[in-house]
């Protein structure tokens, strides 16, 4: 084990916050110890020296002493639930990473399905947790996975039996606030989708304005043959917050997985997807929209491993950047030697609204099979002056015309949000970030 030469206040405070929970089974205690070791061995929070973090600066976070909220310190966070909008489907609410049964509703599940807090799962059905927790999200590879595994207070277990279909989308809301402090929250999701099952899950993070916070959710999703899982992430952070999320997926044959992330706030909003296409004819569609202004960063990181033949993956990402904002896209695709007939596409389109905004887009293809179709494309552009003039010549003010064109650029990403109540919400969130956006909600 190596120890980082200089331990940052953030890493030090996280290590100091480490405890093994009284209800943790012995194997989880061991896993947490390993995770803490992993965090130390990896040098604490990532810096620009890490290849996978070259363009995403966490220095302001590293300088911060972070705190875990106590169970009685969830009220300010819980009060943010109003901002999440109404939701009629199943909903699980977490305040500073701790489950709030009083704000949650569990219904509409098929027979044999389990949806409970991770704490409860560890007490009631540990055998559903143990084989998969920490299997895909490895504590020795990724500092934030290590931090999450060492420190998560609670999370969600969603276990679907063979053929189990959950019709309404399930919403998991992460609310984060601890006034006057810098709180760190580590939400955890473990989703095991049985053969031929179907579910849509939304993870929606809301953190308080003006508070420096770290939210580092980790999700592990295992798809059995023929399962279909749709995962949406809405990052609606306060402008001082850091959300560094990662999603770890393993797909068996003929399973279908979609990941769609809207990064709409935060000093840094990063959404990672690590997917392994392990069975033939598995399909993966990853997409996301990042919107950032001022000196904020939006970062999409995708790593797809094509292990089995005849699998398909697509990556479609867009950013809208204003002020001195930075957009980062890393699309890494590895096609293993046996993975013939792989189809892998990626595209990164970026709209820069100011001279000072920057975008770094990195397609990284490693192809070790010879019969594959892999492509990548990208664009970086500004608003088209002819289109702006067209709209203004019809009577739209300049801010309204700009807003409409920005919205049009982003609209495809909004429409990828399939469940209607969620799409309406996505429309509102995107429109609210435009210069004259409040009236553009019906644009599409």
């Amino acid at each position, binding site marked *: 084990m190596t120890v980082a030469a200089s331990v940052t206040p953030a890493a030090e405070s996280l290590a100091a916050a480490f405890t093994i929970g009284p209800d943790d089974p012995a194997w989880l205690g061991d896993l947490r110890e390993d995770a803490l070791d992993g965090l130390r061995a990896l040098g604490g929070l990532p810096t620009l020296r890490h290849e996978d973090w070259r363009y995403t600066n966490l220095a302001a976070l590293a300088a911060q002493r972070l705190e875990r909220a106590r169970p009685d310190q969830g009220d300010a966070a819980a009060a943010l639930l109003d901002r999440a909008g109404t939701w009629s489907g199943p909903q699980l609410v977490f305040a500073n990473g701790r489950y709030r049964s009083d704000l949650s509703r569990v219904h509409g599940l098929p027979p044999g399905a389990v949806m409970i807090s991770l704490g409860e799962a560890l007490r009631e059905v540990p055998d559903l947790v143990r084989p998969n927790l920490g299997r895909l999200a490895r504590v020795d590879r990724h500092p934030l996975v290590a931090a999450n595994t060492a420190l998560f207070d609670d999370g969600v277990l969603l276990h679907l039996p063979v053929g189990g279909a959950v019709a309404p989308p399930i919403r998991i809301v992460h609310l984060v606030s601890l006034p006057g402090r810098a709180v760190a929250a580590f939400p955890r999701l473990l989703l095991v989708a049985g053969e031929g099952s179907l579910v849509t899950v939304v993870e929606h993070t809301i953190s308080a304005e003006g508070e420096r916070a770290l939210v580092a959710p980790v999700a592990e999703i295992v798809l059995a043959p023929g399962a279909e899982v749709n995962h949406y992430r809405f990052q609606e952070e306060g402008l001082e917050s850091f959300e560094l999320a990662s999603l770890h997926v393993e797909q068996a044959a003929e399973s279908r997985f979609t990941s769609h992330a809207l990064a709409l706030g935060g000093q840094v909003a990063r959404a990672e997807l690590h997917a392994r296409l392990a069975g033939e004819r598995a399909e993966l569609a990853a997409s996301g929209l990042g919107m950032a202004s001022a000196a904020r960063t939006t970062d999409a990181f995708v790593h797809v491993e094509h292990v089995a033949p005849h699998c398909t993956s697509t990556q479609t990402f867009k950013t809208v950047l204003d002020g001195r904002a930075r957009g980062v896209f890393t699309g890494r695709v590895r096609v293993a030697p046996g993975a013939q007939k792989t189809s892998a596409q990626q595209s990164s389109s970026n709209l820069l609204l100011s001279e000072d905004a920057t975008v770094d887009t990195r397609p990284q293809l490693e192809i070790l099979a010879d019969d594959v179709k892999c492509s990548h494309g990208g664009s970086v552009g500004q608003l*088209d*002056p*002819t*289109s702006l*003039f*067209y*709209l*203004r*010549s*019809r*009577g*739209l*003010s*300049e801010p*309204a*015309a700009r807003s*409409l*064109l920005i*919205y*049009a*650029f*982003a*609209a*495809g990403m909004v429409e990828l949000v399939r469940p209607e109540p969620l799409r309406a919400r996505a429309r509102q969130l995107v429109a609210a970030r435009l210069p004259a956006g409040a*009236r553009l909600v*019906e*644009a*599409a």
Partner: protein
Amino acid sequence: MSGAVLLEIRGLRARVGEKEILKGLDLTVREGEVHAIMGPNGSGKSTLAGVLAGRDAYEVTAGSVRYAGQDLLGLAPEARAAAGVFLGFQYPVEIPGVGNLYFLRTALNAIRKARGEEELDAMDFLAFAKEKMKLVELDPAFGSRSVNEGFSGGEKKRNEIFQMAVLEPKLAILDEIDSGLDIDALRVVAGGVNALRRSDRAIVMVTHYQRLLDHVTPDVVHVMAGGRIVKTGGRDLALELEKTGYAWAGDKAPMPLTEART
């Protein structure tokens, strides 16, 4: 049939970058009139249309444009729209992701708001727009499609006339509204323009070809060459041009103006 002077251009000069394109242009348009501005490629027709609508690629270096008693050149494009100026584009812009009717309602309400009129709600607007779509035989399904996205050339031009019908301008400048149209589409577009002729509205059609004028009979025909209007006449001038072509107009000194106004 001529009414009050609506548009008065005097000595207009404009350039793109270092290249001067309009070189002292004069034009007077009265309410109720339909003018055709004809001329060879590169004569400055589209530049004139763009300058009048406020396209910022053009820099006006001299001259004046009075519109309905105000200095048109001092207004932003949206303010010109609110004041009743409409430009039908030669190449209507595709805007994927923005619904055609949504866009048009936003535009109409922006104009109504600027004029101090009440905005139309979605239902009222829809009824109003559907009526106007009939003018150019536009299928109502076009309303929910993205602005001009995937439209054929003819559909785009019909959409321009549809927009004009909805926005009800006082001065419509139609830049090559006939280009790229087959004869059936031309008939539909021309029919739309004719239906929109009114005693308090002026229409200026910029065109390279006289065939549009077989369908929309102008009151005044101008020939433009070298950044100026070099000849003005009646309907007959267009027919004459068809026989002689533009070769005579070239870049030579302007011909004496013919007093052909009726």
